[in-house]
Every structure is written in C-alpha cells, then in structure tokens.
C-alpha cells in the first residue's frame, strides 16, 4: 500500500463517476456518479493525511465532505421527486423548460 496506488485508485473512481455523470440520463444515476466523485476526493484526502505526516486536517475535511454529500443527496432527491410529480420522469434532458 503506497501513496501512488491510492492516487491511481482515486483517479479510477473519479473517472468512473465522471463517466456516470456524463452518460446517464436518469437524474438519480447522475447523483450516484457525483457520490463516486466525492468518494474519490475523500480517498485522496485520507491518503495524503496518512502518508504526509499524519495531519488530521485531511480526515476532518473528509468528514465535512461526507456531511455535504448527505445534505446534497437529501435535497437532490427531494428535487427529483418534485420533478417526477411535475413532468412524470426524472430524465435530465427532459428538464429544459428554462431553455429559451
């Protein structure tokens, strides 16, 4: 277990999340991709905190990222339910009412 390997794992996780965000049309699946990206950043924070002098700031930052992810998921899912009751679907390319 070295820092290099962890950085590569985080990069792979980030790219999987990015691919999910770019290709999916279902908004819930897009949110899953965002969660993957947040996990990738968290791995980086914790890995640097472990390998560079055990600075606890990295882990604290990861805690806050988890808090934000929870809040974001709750609000996003409320918005999705609203969107479903309005348009009957949660596909992101249907939500183009603001397009001129």
């Amino acid at each position: 277990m070295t820092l290099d390997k962890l950085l590569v794992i985080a990069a792979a996780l980030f790219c999987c999340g990015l691919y999910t965000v770019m290709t999916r049309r279902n908004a819930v699946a897009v949110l899953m991709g965002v969660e993957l990206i947040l996990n990738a950043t968290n791995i980086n924070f914790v890995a640097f905190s472990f390998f560079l002098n055990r600075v606890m700031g990295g882990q604290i930052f990861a805690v806050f990222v988890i808090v934000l992810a929870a809040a974001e998921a709750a609000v996003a899912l409320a918005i999705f339910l609203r969107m479903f009751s309005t348009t009957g679907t949660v596909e992101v390319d249907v939500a183009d009412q603001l397009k001129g």
Partner: protein
Amino acid sequence: MSGPADYIFYAAAAMTVGAAILVAILPNILYAAVALLFSFAGVAGLYILLSADFLGATQILVYVGGILVLLLFAVFLSNRISDAKITNPTHFRLPAAAICLVLFGVLSYAGVSTPYAVKKGVYLPTTADIGELLMTRYLLPFEVASVLLLAALIGAALLSRPDRAAPEKGEMEEGKG
C-alpha cells in the same frame, strides 16, 4: 508493508474500482445502486487501512445506511410501477469514455510522477483527535455544517411535500403544512 494487510488492501481496492466500473456501465439503475453499495464498502475498507477508523465507520453509517437507502427510495419513487424494467438508457458513450480514459491517464501520471515527501504512516486511534479538533480549531466549519444540515432538512421537507393548490397568503401561519 507486506503480508495480510497488502492482500486486504488489494481486495478493497479491487472491490472499490470494480464496483465503480459496474456503476458506470450497468444499464439497470437498481443493479447500479447495489454496485454502488459495494464500492462504498470498499472505500470504507481503504479508510480503515489508512488509519482512519472513525471515517470508515462514518462511511458505512452515512453512505451505506443513509445515502444509498435514499437513492433506492428515489429509484422506486421516480419510476412508474407499470414500467416492466427500470432501465436507464445512456448516451454519448464513446466520447465520454474517451474523455474519462484520457483524464484517468493524466491524473494517474500526475499522481505517480510527483515526488511527495512520503513518510511512514502510523496506526493510531483517530476518533479522539477528530473530536478535539472539531471542538477547537474547526469549530466554525462544524457549526456552519450544522446550520447547513438544518437548512437542507427543512428545504428537503418543504420540496417533497405533496402538491397543494396555490396556498393563500397567511395559510402557512395557521399551523398547516
């Protein structure tokens, strides 16, 4: 470091990345959600291997126990029962895959080629340190996060409440809603 910890590390890493790839490519969104569960669990294993025991437990509790259940609720609530299968058509596959592969190469190269001043990690309990830092040095972000969670809670409850015909002014003060 070699020995059992290495095998556990490779197992956790394979589970994390393999499940993340499944999340990206599985067409059925329910299967993708289950794959996401394994990916989160693998990340929790990596946290524990990185001497972040508190974060590993938090990951299991918040992500697997909270966010994933929320996601599954959303999947079930946002698809019509009459739909035979909850599939999730994808688009822009090839350009997205190309962009992600290139980005993966760049990120990996940047991470591997940068000479970091790596020290040998030590395994110590972290919960007490995190608690102390949250109450001293990081008190302001801690309080801001609590206010944010309250705002998100109220906002989510307000957003997801059932439809009502245009509430009149003053109706809210009468204890409704």
